[in-house]
């Protein structure tokens, strides 16, 4: 329905720069996940999109229309906050309705509605007073008191039940509506709102909860209401600010599926902010990694995972994170390239890597990056020297700690004085603490980063 463009956005909070010259584009119907550590400016980015903050410089476009100075209400965006921020004094039905009311009714209709409401209560009150007067004049003394008390108790009980109150209102309004076109159109729109609330509640399985107050709901239910309040008015853009971070782990994964399903169904351009990289990988069509107010990488989940553009992205995406070893590239006496780390410990590199990547960075600081699943832990190394460069190279280490998750095990091992790596193994680990371990490297999945700039070589 709408695409979003951010052009050279800068944002200062007094003297702290939260966003630095940020340019970003989200195409129509896309699910963009903005991920980054806390304090990276991702929430600020979202609030600028929503119009809750104005950028210090730069422009925001939604649907090719410049909305930098357009107030939030006129941008047609919906937002879900981390704390849900449902209106605590309204029940779920009214929470959902409030989002629509201001967009649906004209001033005139609302005035007529409130006037009618006032009239209704005046009539009701005068009727009650008449009845009270009748009771006090006609009955004997103690019956009179009893009658009055019962009457007023009945009145307050009726008024305090929202269902009955709505029923009375409906009757009365249809009576008056015969003579007022504005009221009739108000009522028609109100019915449309009811219809929308019903269908949204159905979509999110909230039908049974409509009469409850937010504090009577569980975390997951509140989350669904918050989502419902955002989707009910079919916004152009849907903004989610860490919506799952207050839920427990199990609920989080089911809500994750639900959000993905909803977005596919409704086809609304979505920007989703999170610090959780699992959410980022599973939900997004595209991932933007933000750090210190700058975009580190912008790409599909696969690109971000397989081709991280710098050290930050490599360490941020992936769980457990990529193994990063600082060291240097050198050429051995026999003309093969080696990676030297930690006081002359060496990893032999295959010939395929030599030509392109190494010459420029010879004897300069680099970071060698390899993901745990691209290392294979073996007990005995196949004879290292047999086929130089053809065989995968190995790193020798000592097992320090083992985490077994059942389907996968993470083996932490020391491979030097100061260097540790994590190797993942399927199923349960064959290694115990203190065992010797050889990690075979699949070099086609390995990365080198420049130590100074952090960029991938």
């Amino acid at each position: 329905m709408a695409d979003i463009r951010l052009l050279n956005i800068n944002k200062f909070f007094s003297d702290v720069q939260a966003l630095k010259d940020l340019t970003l584009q989200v195409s129509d119907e896309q699910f963009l996940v903005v991920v980054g550590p806390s304090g990276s400016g991702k929430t600020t980015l979202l609030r600028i999109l929503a119009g809750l903050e104005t950028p210090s410089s730069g422009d925001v476009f939604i649907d090719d229309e410049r909305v930098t100075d357009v107030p939030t209400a006129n941008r047609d965006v919906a937002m879900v906050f981390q704390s849900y921020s449902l209106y605590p004094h309204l029940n779920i039905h009214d929470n959902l309705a409030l989002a629509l009311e201001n967009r649906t009714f004209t001033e005139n209709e609302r005035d007529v509605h409130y006037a009618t409401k006032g009239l209704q209560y005046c009539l009701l009150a005068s009727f009650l007073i008449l009845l009270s007067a009748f009771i006090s004049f006609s009955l004997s003394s103690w019956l009179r008191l009893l009658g009055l008390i019962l009457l007023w108790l009945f009145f307050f009980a009726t008024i305090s039940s929202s269902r009955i109150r709505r029923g009375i209102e409906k009757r009365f309004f249809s009576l008056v509506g015969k003579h007022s076109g504005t009221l009739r159109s108000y009522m028609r729109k109100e019915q449309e709102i009811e219809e929308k609330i019903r269908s949204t509640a159905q979509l999110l399985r909230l039908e049974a909860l409509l009469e409850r107050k937010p504090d009577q709901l569980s975390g997951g239910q509140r989350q669904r209401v918050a989502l419902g309040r955002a989707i009910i008015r079919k916004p152009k853009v849907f903004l989610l600010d860490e919506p799952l971070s207050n839920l427990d782990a199990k609920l989080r994964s089911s809500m994750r599926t639900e959000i993905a399903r909803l977005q596919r169904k409704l086809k609304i351009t979505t920007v989703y902010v999170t610090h959780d990289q699992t959410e980022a990988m599973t939900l997004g069509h595209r991932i933007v990694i933000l750090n210190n107010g700058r975009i580190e990488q912008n790409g599909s989940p696969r690109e971000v995972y397989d081709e991280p553009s710098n050290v930050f992205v490599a360490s941020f995406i992936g769980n457990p994170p990529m193994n990063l070893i600082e060291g240097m590239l050198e050429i051995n006496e026999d003309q093969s390239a080696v990676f030297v780390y930690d006081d002359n410990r060496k990893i032999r590199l295959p010939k395929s890597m030599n030509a392109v990547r190494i010459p420029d960075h010879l004897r300069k600081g680099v970071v060698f990056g390899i993901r745990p699943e691209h290392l294979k832990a073996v007990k005995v190394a196949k004879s290292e020297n047999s086929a130089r460069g053809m065989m995968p190279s190995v790193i020798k280490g000592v097992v320090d700690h083992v985490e077994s998750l059942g389907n996968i095990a993470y083996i932490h091992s020391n491979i030097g004085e100061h260097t540790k790596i994590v190797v993942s193994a399927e199923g349960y680990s064959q290694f115990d603490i203190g065992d010797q371990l050889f990690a075979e490297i699949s070099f086609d999945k390995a990365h080198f980063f420049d130590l100074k700039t952090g960029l991938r070589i």
Partner: protein
Amino acid sequence: MANTRKLCKTAIKYSFLLTFIIVFSIPLPWLVITAFNSLGQTFYGSFAFTLDNFSAVFQEYRLMNSLLNSLIISTMAAALTTCISLMSAYSIARLNPPKKNSYLRLLAFCLFLPFSTVMIPIYAIASFLRLTNTYSGPAIIICAFELPFFIWLSKAVIERLPNELEDMCQLDGISSLQTLVRIVVPNIRGAITAIFLLSFASAWNELTIPFLLTTSPDKYPASLFILYFIRENGLSRQATYSPGLFAAFSLIYVLPSILIYIVTKVFLRKDPYKSSVILG
């Protein structure tokens, strides 16, 4: 040895405390006993239980009138204070008005301003505006002097509401006045009730401002009437009003303050965002 020292310390501490308690609490039993005593002012003499003093208060026109005056003035002052303090506190807390900090500093200064220093200009202004001998005069000026404190209080209450509530209102397209009325006020109902009652109580207890602005005994509030009582009659048996009557009247006068103290605590517990600011 150590035990004796400890005992001595405790004894000294409690004897001090007891002295203070006795000094401060003597008027209260005197008030209660005299109010229910048919034999007039006797703290030492005999005592005979009666409710005559109370029925006399209810039959005396001037006494009831002064209570009514107090009620009218306090209600007006409390309503004004609640509305104004709520709105200005909301704008200070949420809307970031220009010069917000200097305004807050000014408020803090007003909080410590002694009334006696501005008595003369206030009297001059009030008489120029013909606010002397009216209900609205004392009500407006009491309100003005209560405002700084209650603005600070309501500001603290409103700041406890999460910011996201207002962000949500912006997203839903609700104007800031509507936000105040439809979202903020319902969520701090209890605190608002407490603010109303507290300002009512302080207006009810106010003596100097009505004293300055009211000369006609018809418009005397109860606090002023008690003063008048002592001034004109002393507390002797020969006076128009007996001490028993005075004591009964004082008890009735004190009743709202006690009620308000209890009711305030009950109301404050109702809010979804509890304001410990007032609960203490």
